[in-house]
């Protein structure tokens, strides 16, 4: 794949205000921005309360608020739109079954995405077993990405998807949650049940690996980033 990825002349800009000291690149203009969970705490509590009361409108609000984001994450973790929709549906059912156990120790969205990530991993395992692709470490298998609507840089997206497939499952989870879905490390730590420092380290390793995969080997002039 060589230089397909990082040498394209795309636009980017750095966030003018880094959140909690975290630096991230803002999305392209005109595209949907990830929901800022920290600014949505009242909504988070309201949706959680509505779901706790057993009112289906609470779940509908959760879907309207986070549904596309959930589906996007599931799509990137599972590689197929149909599997992603199955995972989101199963996640909602699991939320309904276990909502009484939600103690508010994390935000409701963090809790929801923790269930989603686990559901995606379970689904991948079951799909792999069903296809008799027996493997000792199913999580290590990359998702098989299906074609989807072309974006601004389809070749870049395909190169990135292939490279993501070569990361460890853990690195893939952290990269997608942070860089694509816009979660903070504290939130990712809650979702993946790791420390915030571990989340930062994993993201760093993931990006170093992706950079190695997406860029051709450079001369020693580039210094010690590798």
């Amino acid at each position, binding site marked *: 794949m060589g230089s397909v990825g990082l040498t394209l002349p795309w636009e980017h800009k750095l966030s003018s205000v880094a959140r909690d000291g975290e630096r991230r690149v803002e999305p392209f203009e005109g595209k949907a921005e990830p929901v800022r969970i920290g600014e949505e705490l009242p909504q988070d509590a309201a949706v959680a309360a509505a779901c706790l009361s057993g009112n*289906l409108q609470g779940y509908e609000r959760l879907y309207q608020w986070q549904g596309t984001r959930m589906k996007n994450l599931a799509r990137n973790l599972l590689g197929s739109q149909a599997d992603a929709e199955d995972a989101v549906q199963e996640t909602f059912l699991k939320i309904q079954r276990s909502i009484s156990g939600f103690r508010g120790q994390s935000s409701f969205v963090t809790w929801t995405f923790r269930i989603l990530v686990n559901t995606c991993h379970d689904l991948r395992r079951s799909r792999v077993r069903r296809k008799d692709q027996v493997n000792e470490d199913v999580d290590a298998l990359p998702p098989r990405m299906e074609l989807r609507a072309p974006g601004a840089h389809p070749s870049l997206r395909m190169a990135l998807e292939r490279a993501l497939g070569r990361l460890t499952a853990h690195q893939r989870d952290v990269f997608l949650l942070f860089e694509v879905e816009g979660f903070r490390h504290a939130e990712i730590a809650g979702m993946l049940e790791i420390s915030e420092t571990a989340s930062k380290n994993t993201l760093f390793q993931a990006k170093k690996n992706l950079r190695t995969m997406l860029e051709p080997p450079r001369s020693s002039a580039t210094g010690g980033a590798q």
Partner: protein
Amino acid sequence: MNVNCDDRDRIFLDGSPEEWAALEQHANTCAACAEELRAWKQLSAAANELRDYQESPALWALIETSLRQQQAAPPPRKSFWSSLDFWRHISPAWQSAMVGALAVALAVSSGYLYTRRPVSPGDPGNKLLKTSALAEVERTERDYMSAIDKLAADASPQLKADTPLMAGYREKLLVLDSAIADLRAQTGGNPSNAHLRYQLLAMYQEKQQTLQDVLETKR
């Protein structure tokens, strides 16, 4: 704030906004850092290509239907292990205290039961009779049966009376004789079973008491 090439990875990992600004300033005069910074930022920008927030209106309809079905279904029975879930919500200090209290309670109750255990020379806890004890039991049982037969012979004229009371006694004695016959058949196959012998003895005692009641009625 001054940073150099050696700080770059640390800033990439967990740099503050001030450190990022300082790194960008440093990159203006360092080609290597400028290249690394560009690549690092562009990876984040490339991640946007994986963001596709298209609505799926049909999906919510599916989810809503399955949520309604699940809501209408009876809740699954709680397993024994899930009923112990409360334990996870107790702090470790309280868990230790409760385990300690439970251990003390177990030790005290075990000691109490040990000191108050029934003591008898024949060790009634031993449910299997030894050969010599078995012979003694069978001899005594024969004598006892013989004595009860004599008692039955004494009560026989009274039992023949055509009164409701005697009819009740006759019926009770029939039931007892039937039970005694069953137990004797069982002890025949397993003569060392003390439990069966105790049951048989209880039946004999009941028959004896019934016959005595019949004789008391005569007086």
